[in-house]
């Protein structure tokens, strides 16, 4: 009897080593993912994934249906943030969440991680980053060669999605105020 109990305890102990965290929300793991910036993708990275046809990629727009109807990233599906728990996300799917400027997307990321999904990312600055960096990328005239090469790669992606890469002849307004004015919402 004692030997049997010892075997049960030993088995439970060894399996505990492999079973992962007993907390449904492993805050330390989430904090590490955020610190390593493994929690999000940039708009250009997402565009590259979409064009390459990344296996089992799901782009999820967590805004409201009317906002989704006005414009959304090509191939995206609309799952309003309050409906996230009602939609199944198989473990094999890579899910990229986005909202207007990223806040709701980041919150949705926490929700899905809390539900146990591992391959989840959010689009860093949301739809506005997509519009700025993929659909309307710009470069200043006379930019250094490496910046020009990077722009050429983005411009190619942009044209794939019907975007309009532009070369700025004047001085671009990239101030924080200008960015904030462009990026309103959640």
């Amino acid at each position, binding site marked *: 009897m004692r030997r049997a109990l010892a075997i049960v*305890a*030993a088995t439970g*102990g*060894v399996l*505990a080593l492999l*079973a*992962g965290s*007993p907390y449904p929300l492993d805050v330390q793991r989430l904090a590490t993912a955020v610190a390593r910036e493994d929690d999000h993708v940039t708009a250009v990275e997402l565009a590259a994934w979409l064009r390459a046809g990344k296996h089992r990629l799901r782009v999820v727009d967590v805004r409201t249906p009317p906002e989704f109807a006005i414009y959304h990233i090509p191939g995206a599906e609309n799952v309003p943030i309050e409906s996230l728990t009602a939609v199944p996300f198989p473990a094999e799917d890579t899910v990229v969440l986005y909202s207007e400027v990223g806040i709701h997307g980041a919150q949705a990321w926490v929700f899905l991680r809390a539900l146990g999904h591992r391959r989840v990312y959010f689009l860093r600055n949301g739809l506005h980053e997509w519009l700025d960096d993929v659909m309307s990328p710009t470069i200043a005239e006379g930019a250094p060669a490496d910046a020009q090469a990077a722009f050429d790669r983005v411009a190619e992606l942009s044209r794939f999605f019907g975007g309009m890469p532009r070369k700025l002849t004047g001085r671009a307004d990239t101030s924080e105020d200008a960015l904030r004015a462009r990026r309103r919402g959640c």
Partner: protein
Amino acid sequence: MIALAIGIAFGFCLERAGLGDSRKLAGQFYFTDFTVLKVMFSAIVTAALGAFWLARLGVLDLAGVYVPETYLLPQLAGGLLFGAGFVAAGLCPGTSCVAAASGHGDGLMVVLGMFVGVVVTGLAFAPLRHFYDSTARGPLTFPQLLHVPYGAVVFAVVALALATFAAAERWERCA
């Protein structure tokens, strides 16, 4: 009602393990009887494995489990005082109640002594207050303290318990 049922079950288990007998408990300190160590370590292993696996299977929410706060120096002093009382009386608070309930006079005296101690501590609490609240470290757990996964701590506790049980059994056979 739940607390009453748990208390009765706890007392029953202590009595069945023979821990209502102060000579058996004193044997722990003379290294002639390791029942206390085995019972207590069995309880720790059961709780560690039970809490881990119930939480892992989604039955228990560990965030809702109360973790007492750590006060280093007061708890160290309290532990030494507790240990000295344990050795002198041959009983601890739980086992003294079991001993008293099963008709042992020494158990009754220890229970009375505990009540006197509680009253004296209450009366002398004001000057002790500063020490009582000192060296606060908050609720600490081994996974947080050692920065290791919860499962690794459970494994270490189980391994340590099994090794200790084996050593205690061997010691008892040789003694």
